[in-house]
Protein backbone atom coordinates (compact mmCIF):
# COMPACT_ATOMS: atom_id res chain seq x y z
CA UNK A 1 0.00 0.00 0.00
CA UNK A 2 2.81 2.35 0.81
CA UNK A 3 4.43 1.66 -2.56
CA UNK A 4 1.09 2.46 -4.23
CA UNK A 5 0.98 5.86 -2.59
CA UNK A 6 4.55 6.45 -3.59
CA UNK A 7 3.55 5.59 -7.14
CA UNK A 8 0.69 8.07 -6.91
CA UNK A 9 3.12 10.76 -5.80
CA UNK A 10 5.33 9.99 -8.77
CA UNK A 11 2.30 10.22 -11.05
CA UNK A 12 1.47 13.59 -9.56
CA UNK A 13 4.97 14.81 -10.29
CA UNK A 14 4.69 13.41 -13.82
CA UNK A 15 1.41 15.30 -14.30
CA UNK A 16 2.99 18.59 -13.26
CA UNK A 17 6.03 18.04 -15.49
CA UNK A 18 3.83 17.10 -18.46
CA UNK A 19 1.71 20.20 -18.01
CA UNK A 20 4.77 22.44 -17.77
CA UNK A 21 6.42 20.96 -20.86
CA UNK A 22 3.28 20.98 -22.99
CA UNK A 23 2.43 24.52 -21.99
CA UNK A 24 5.90 25.60 -23.07
CA UNK A 25 5.50 23.88 -26.44
CA UNK A 26 2.06 25.43 -26.94
CA UNK A 27 3.35 28.90 -26.02
CA UNK A 28 6.22 28.59 -28.49
CA UNK A 29 3.93 27.34 -31.27
CA UNK A 30 1.47 30.18 -30.71
CA UNK A 31 4.27 32.76 -30.75
CA UNK A 32 5.25 31.62 -34.25
CA UNK A 33 1.82 32.27 -35.74
CA UNK A 34 1.95 36.11 -35.79
CA UNK A 35 5.50 36.03 -37.14
CA UNK A 36 4.44 33.77 -39.99
CA UNK A 37 1.51 36.07 -40.75
CA UNK A 38 3.84 39.06 -40.82
CA UNK A 39 6.19 37.26 -43.20
CA UNK A 40 3.28 36.26 -45.42
CA UNK A 41 2.06 39.86 -45.59
CA UNK A 42 5.55 41.13 -46.40
CA UNK A 43 6.03 38.54 -49.12
CA UNK A 44 2.64 39.40 -50.59
CA UNK A 45 3.49 43.13 -50.64
CA UNK A 46 6.89 42.36 -52.13
CA UNK A 47 5.26 40.36 -54.86
CA UNK A 48 2.90 43.26 -55.64
CA UNK A 49 5.82 45.69 -55.71
CA UNK A 50 7.44 43.60 -58.39
CA UNK A 51 4.42 43.98 -60.66
CA UNK A 52 6.19 47.01 -62.15
CA UNK A 53 9.16 44.96 -63.31
CA UNK A 54 7.35 44.39 -66.59
CA UNK A 55 7.89 48.08 -67.28
CA UNK A 56 11.62 47.40 -67.40
CA UNK A 57 11.05 46.05 -70.89
CA UNK A 58 9.68 49.45 -71.89
CA UNK A 59 12.65 51.12 -70.23
CA UNK A 60 14.96 48.81 -72.12
CA UNK A 61 13.44 49.80 -75.44
CA UNK A 62 13.48 53.49 -74.53
CA UNK A 63 17.13 53.34 -73.54
CA UNK A 64 18.04 51.66 -76.81
CA UNK A 65 16.19 54.32 -78.81
CA UNK A 66 17.68 57.14 -76.74
CA UNK A 67 21.22 55.88 -77.15
CA UNK A 68 20.63 55.51 -80.87
CA UNK A 69 19.40 59.12 -81.09
CA UNK A 70 22.34 60.32 -79.00
CA UNK A 71 24.69 58.45 -81.32
CA UNK A 72 23.12 60.17 -84.32
CA UNK A 73 23.46 63.60 -82.67
CA UNK A 74 27.02 62.77 -81.69
CA UNK A 75 27.85 61.88 -85.26
CA UNK A 76 26.41 65.14 -86.50
CA UNK A 77 28.25 67.15 -83.85
CA UNK A 78 31.43 65.35 -84.73
CA UNK A 79 31.06 66.65 -88.26
CA UNK A 80 29.95 70.18 -87.32
CA UNK A 81 32.40 71.03 -84.54
CA UNK A 82 36.13 71.23 -84.87
CA UNK A 83 38.27 68.94 -82.83
CA UNK A 84 40.21 70.40 -79.95
CA UNK A 85 43.53 69.54 -81.59
CA UNK A 86 42.63 71.42 -84.76
CA UNK A 87 41.94 74.70 -82.98
Amino acid at each position, binding site marked *: *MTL*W*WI*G*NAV*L*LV*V*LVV*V*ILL*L*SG*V*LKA*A*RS*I*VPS*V*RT*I*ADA*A*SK*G*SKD*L*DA*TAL*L*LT*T*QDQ*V*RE*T*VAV*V*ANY*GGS*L*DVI*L*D*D*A*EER
Partner: protein
Amino acid sequence: MPAAGVVTIALIVLIVLALVVYLVSTILALQKITNGLDDVIKSVGEIVEKSGPVNAVVDDINTNLDAGVGLLEGLLVKKAGMGDALGLVDGLYPGAAEAGFRAFPESREITPPRIGEVYTRGTLTLARLGREAPIAMANPAGPVLRSIEYGSLNARLLYPEARQSRPERLDRSPVIGTDAPEQYEQREDIGRPRKRMRSA
Protein backbone atom coordinates in the same frame (compact mmCIF):
# COMPACT_ATOMS: atom_id res chain seq x y z
CA MET B 1 -11.32 -0.44 -4.37
CA PRO B 2 -8.81 1.11 -2.12
CA ALA B 3 -8.35 4.87 -2.04
CA ALA B 4 -4.89 4.61 -3.56
CA GLY B 5 -6.38 2.97 -6.64
CA VAL B 6 -8.91 5.75 -7.05
CA VAL B 7 -6.16 8.36 -6.78
CA THR B 8 -4.06 6.49 -9.34
CA ILE B 9 -6.90 6.33 -11.81
CA ALA B 10 -7.67 10.02 -11.27
CA LEU B 11 -4.05 10.99 -11.81
CA ILE B 12 -3.81 8.93 -15.01
CA VAL B 13 -7.00 10.53 -16.30
CA LEU B 14 -5.65 13.98 -15.51
CA ILE B 15 -2.39 13.21 -17.32
CA VAL B 16 -4.28 12.00 -20.37
CA LEU B 17 -6.53 15.04 -20.31
CA ALA B 18 -3.54 17.38 -20.07
CA LEU B 19 -1.90 15.60 -22.98
CA VAL B 20 -5.03 15.85 -25.08
CA VAL B 21 -5.72 19.51 -24.35
CA TYR B 22 -2.20 20.74 -24.88
CA LEU B 23 -1.44 18.56 -27.89
CA VAL B 24 -4.66 19.53 -29.63
CA SER B 25 -3.90 23.20 -29.01
CA THR B 26 -0.41 22.70 -30.35
CA ILE B 27 -1.76 20.95 -33.43
CA LEU B 28 -4.13 23.86 -34.11
CA ALA B 29 -1.28 26.35 -33.77
CA LEU B 30 0.88 24.31 -36.11
CA GLN B 31 -1.96 24.20 -38.65
CA LYS B 32 -2.11 27.99 -38.58
CA ILE B 33 1.64 28.10 -39.10
CA THR B 34 1.36 25.71 -42.03
CA ASN B 35 -1.34 27.83 -43.65
CA GLY B 36 0.77 30.95 -43.17
CA LEU B 37 3.81 29.28 -44.66
CA ASP B 38 1.73 28.22 -47.65
CA ASP B 39 0.93 31.87 -48.26
CA VAL B 40 4.59 32.76 -47.84
CA ILE B 41 5.67 30.11 -50.33
CA LYS B 42 3.08 31.30 -52.82
CA SER B 43 4.21 34.92 -52.58
CA VAL B 44 7.90 34.02 -52.66
CA GLY B 45 7.26 31.95 -55.76
CA GLU B 46 5.67 34.98 -57.39
CA ILE B 47 8.65 37.10 -56.39
CA VAL B 48 11.08 34.62 -57.90
CA GLU B 49 9.00 34.39 -61.06
CA LYS B 50 8.70 38.17 -61.47
CA SER B 51 12.31 38.99 -60.65
CA GLY B 52 13.75 36.26 -62.86
CA PRO B 53 14.24 38.28 -66.08
CA VAL B 54 15.24 41.46 -64.26
CA ASN B 55 18.96 40.74 -64.32
CA ALA B 56 19.12 40.26 -68.06
CA VAL B 57 17.03 43.37 -68.76
CA VAL B 58 19.01 45.55 -66.35
CA ASP B 59 22.29 44.26 -67.78
CA ASP B 60 21.11 45.17 -71.27
CA ILE B 61 20.04 48.65 -70.09
CA ASN B 62 23.40 49.18 -68.40
CA THR B 63 25.24 48.04 -71.51
CA ASN B 64 23.36 50.53 -73.66
CA LEU B 65 23.85 53.32 -71.14
CA ASP B 66 27.57 52.52 -70.91
CA ALA B 67 27.79 52.76 -74.67
CA GLY B 68 26.02 56.14 -74.58
CA VAL B 69 28.29 57.42 -71.81
CA GLY B 70 31.38 56.27 -73.69
CA LEU B 71 30.14 57.93 -76.84
CA LEU B 72 29.43 61.25 -75.16
CA GLU B 73 32.65 61.24 -73.17
CA GLY B 74 34.66 60.44 -76.28
CA LEU B 75 32.95 63.20 -78.24
CA LEU B 76 33.46 65.69 -75.41
CA VAL B 77 37.13 64.86 -75.05
CA LYS B 78 37.63 64.97 -78.81
CA LYS B 79 35.97 68.34 -79.23
CA ALA B 80 36.93 70.16 -76.04
CA GLY B 81 40.17 68.48 -75.11
CA MET B 82 40.76 66.44 -71.99
CA GLY B 83 41.35 69.37 -69.65
CA ASP B 84 38.40 71.49 -70.70
CA ALA B 85 36.14 68.46 -70.85
CA LEU B 86 37.03 67.62 -67.27
CA GLY B 87 36.54 71.22 -66.22
CA LEU B 88 33.15 71.36 -67.88
CA VAL B 89 32.00 68.15 -66.23
CA ASP B 90 33.35 69.29 -62.88
CA GLY B 91 31.63 72.64 -63.30
CA LEU B 92 28.29 70.98 -63.90
CA TYR B 93 28.73 68.26 -61.30
CA PRO B 94 31.22 69.40 -58.62
CA GLY B 95 33.58 66.63 -57.66
CA ALA B 96 32.81 64.50 -60.71
CA ALA B 97 36.25 65.15 -62.17
CA GLU B 98 37.83 63.05 -59.44
CA ALA B 99 36.19 59.95 -60.88
CA GLY B 100 37.42 60.90 -64.36
CA PHE B 101 36.08 59.52 -67.60
CA ARG B 102 35.49 55.79 -67.87
CA ALA B 103 37.21 55.35 -71.19
CA PHE B 104 40.11 57.62 -70.25
CA PRO B 105 41.78 56.37 -67.08
CA GLU B 106 44.45 59.06 -67.35
CA SER B 107 41.75 61.69 -66.78
CA ARG B 108 41.76 60.87 -63.06
CA GLU B 109 45.23 62.32 -62.71
CA ILE B 110 44.41 65.64 -64.37
CA THR B 111 43.48 68.65 -62.29
CA PRO B 112 40.38 70.09 -63.94
CA PRO B 113 40.40 73.79 -64.81
CA ARG B 114 37.79 75.95 -63.16
CA ILE B 115 35.05 76.50 -65.67
CA GLY B 116 32.08 78.35 -64.19
CA GLU B 117 28.48 77.61 -64.84
CA VAL B 118 26.42 80.19 -66.61
CA TYR B 119 24.56 82.42 -64.10
CA THR B 120 26.22 80.69 -61.19
CA ARG B 121 29.98 80.67 -60.96
CA GLY B 122 30.12 83.05 -63.89
CA THR B 123 28.06 85.45 -61.84
CA LEU B 124 30.63 85.27 -59.08
CA THR B 125 33.42 85.95 -61.50
CA LEU B 126 31.64 88.97 -62.92
CA ALA B 127 30.88 90.21 -59.44
CA ARG B 128 34.53 90.00 -58.52
CA LEU B 129 35.49 91.98 -61.57
CA GLY B 130 32.92 94.68 -60.94
CA ARG B 131 32.94 97.81 -58.78
CA GLU B 132 32.98 97.13 -55.04
CA ALA B 133 33.26 93.47 -55.77
CA PRO B 134 33.39 91.50 -52.55
CA ILE B 135 36.45 89.50 -53.41
CA ALA B 136 36.37 86.01 -51.92
CA MET B 137 33.05 86.77 -50.25
CA ALA B 138 31.52 83.76 -51.94
CA ASN B 139 33.19 80.54 -52.86
CA PRO B 140 32.76 79.02 -56.32
CA ALA B 141 32.73 75.63 -54.66
CA GLY B 142 29.62 76.61 -52.70
CA PRO B 143 26.01 75.93 -53.60
CA VAL B 144 24.60 77.05 -56.91
CA LEU B 145 23.37 80.63 -56.77
CA ARG B 146 20.93 80.39 -59.63
CA SER B 147 17.37 80.93 -58.60
CA ILE B 148 14.44 80.98 -60.96
CA GLU B 149 12.50 83.58 -58.99
CA TYR B 150 15.31 85.55 -57.39
CA GLY B 151 18.19 85.15 -59.82
CA SER B 152 19.04 88.83 -59.96
CA LEU B 153 18.69 89.22 -56.19
CA ASN B 154 21.25 86.48 -55.63
CA ALA B 155 23.71 88.30 -57.82
CA ARG B 156 22.99 91.64 -56.17
CA LEU B 157 23.47 90.19 -52.72
CA LEU B 158 27.11 89.68 -53.57
CA TYR B 159 27.55 93.44 -53.28
CA PRO B 160 27.46 95.48 -50.08
CA GLU B 161 24.01 95.57 -48.58
CA ALA B 162 23.61 99.35 -48.43
CA ARG B 163 24.13 99.93 -52.10
CA GLN B 164 21.92 97.24 -53.55
CA SER B 165 18.90 96.58 -51.40
CA ARG B 166 18.47 99.97 -49.67
CA PRO B 167 19.43 102.61 -52.21
CA GLU B 168 17.13 105.14 -50.59
CA ARG B 169 19.50 105.38 -47.64
CA LEU B 170 22.48 106.36 -49.74
CA ASP B 171 23.95 109.82 -49.41
CA ARG B 172 22.54 112.40 -51.75
CA SER B 173 24.47 113.19 -54.87
CA PRO B 174 26.72 116.25 -54.60
CA VAL B 175 25.11 119.53 -55.61
CA ILE B 176 26.89 121.43 -58.34
CA GLY B 177 26.41 124.87 -59.80
CA THR B 178 26.42 128.42 -58.54
CA ASP B 179 24.08 127.58 -55.65
CA ALA B 180 26.12 124.62 -54.53
CA PRO B 181 27.04 124.72 -50.83
CA GLU B 182 30.57 123.83 -51.72
CA GLN B 183 32.27 125.95 -54.36
CA TYR B 184 35.24 124.49 -56.09
CA GLU B 185 38.30 126.38 -57.28
CA GLN B 186 37.73 128.53 -60.36
CA ARG B 187 40.22 127.99 -63.11
CA GLU B 188 40.90 130.97 -65.35
CA ASP B 189 41.88 128.94 -68.35
CA ILE B 190 38.50 127.28 -68.62
CA GLY B 191 36.45 128.71 -71.48
CA ARG B 192 39.36 130.56 -73.04
CA PRO B 193 40.95 129.59 -76.37
CA ARG B 194 43.31 126.72 -76.16
CA LYS B 195 46.95 127.64 -76.03
CA ARG B 196 48.71 126.88 -79.22
CA MET B 197 52.21 125.62 -79.52
CA ARG B 198 54.54 127.91 -81.29
CA SER B 199 55.43 126.65 -84.70
CA ALA B 200 59.10 125.91 -85.12
